[in-house]
């Protein structure tokens, strides 16, 4: 089991990149008034058949052939359902997949969001061929990171050069702090 929700995000988004997505949209939306945390990961990768989609939350189903278990999606589903929330996965072959998990913020069994900045930074820097649109929203205050905008400015300079990698980390850290005022949840 994952120790924080941001690790689930990393894991599920890794699936998107492996599905050949050119754009992965990740949304974190926390609202203390409605007491909800909604996490969405949507990609335009290869998608799945209705049969595969129905099976993917089963821990004993996986598309790989090396062994018979696939725990990534079941972990995420379990994390949401254990915290009074809900989980859905929708997919269309050739169109893409959308995973959505809703959590009750104040639920005692809700895992902490954790280091979401590290998750997004890792995804962006290590998957230069995939574009990411990340939206972070806390009580209506939000910011976005769009790697397509970054790429336009950078004109081919790679994300893993030290200065750019550091900029991306600072961008995520500073803008998150501005949106949530350092709230830990």
């Amino acid at each position, binding site marked *: *089991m*994952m*120790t924080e929700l941001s*690790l689930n995000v*990393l*894991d599920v988004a*890794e699936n998107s990149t*492996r599905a050949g997505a050119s754009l992965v949209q990740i949304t974190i939306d926390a609202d203390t008034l409605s007491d909800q945390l909604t996490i969405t990961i949507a990609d335009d990768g290869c998608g799945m058949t209705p049969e595969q989609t129905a099976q993917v939350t089963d821990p004993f189903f996986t598309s*790989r052939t*090396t062994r018979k278990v*696939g*725990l*990534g999606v079941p*972990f995420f589903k379990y994390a949401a359902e254990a915290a009074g929330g809900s989980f859905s996965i929708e997919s269309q072959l050739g169109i893409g997949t959308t995973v959505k998990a809703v959590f009750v913020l104040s639920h005692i069994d809700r895992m902490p969001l954790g*280091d979401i900045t*590290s*998750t997004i*930074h*890792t995804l962006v*820097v*290590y998957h230069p061929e995939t574009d990411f649109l990340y939206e972070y929203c806390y009580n209506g205050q939000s*910011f976005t990171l769009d790697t397509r*905008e*970054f790429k336009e*400015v*950078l*004109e*081919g*300079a*790679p994300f*893993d*050069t*030290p*200065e*750019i*990698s550091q*900029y991306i980390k*600072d*961008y995520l850290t*500073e*803008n998150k702090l*501005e949106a949530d005022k350092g709230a830990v949840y």
Partner: protein
Amino acid sequence: MKSLEELKAIRNKMQGQVGLRAEDHNHTRVVVGMATCGIASGARPVLNALSTLVQEKGLTGKVAVTQTGCIGLCQYEPIVEVMEPGKQKITYIKMNADKAAEIVERHLIGGHVVEEYTLNSADIK
């Protein structure tokens, strides 16, 4: 609010430097397993530590840190593989950020394999 202007400034400062990075085949490749098994056992801080240290120690010209999927040895995660050109692959198991720092210092900089963390040294049953 961090702006794109700052990124533009970084880009302009870097102009001309980009071509200086070594070719891929001369690079030592450091690969971190980042599937469910790796992530659940702590691969993210290991990857972050490795890439940060490689940058801080100025090794980016000869070391490339990348990630991969499941290596197939889930019980030994987090796993770090070091592939130096012309040498046998070294597989480090049960890594954490501190051990990763040692790998950078002793193996990537010092040139000596940290035997006690390798898969070879593990008592495999």
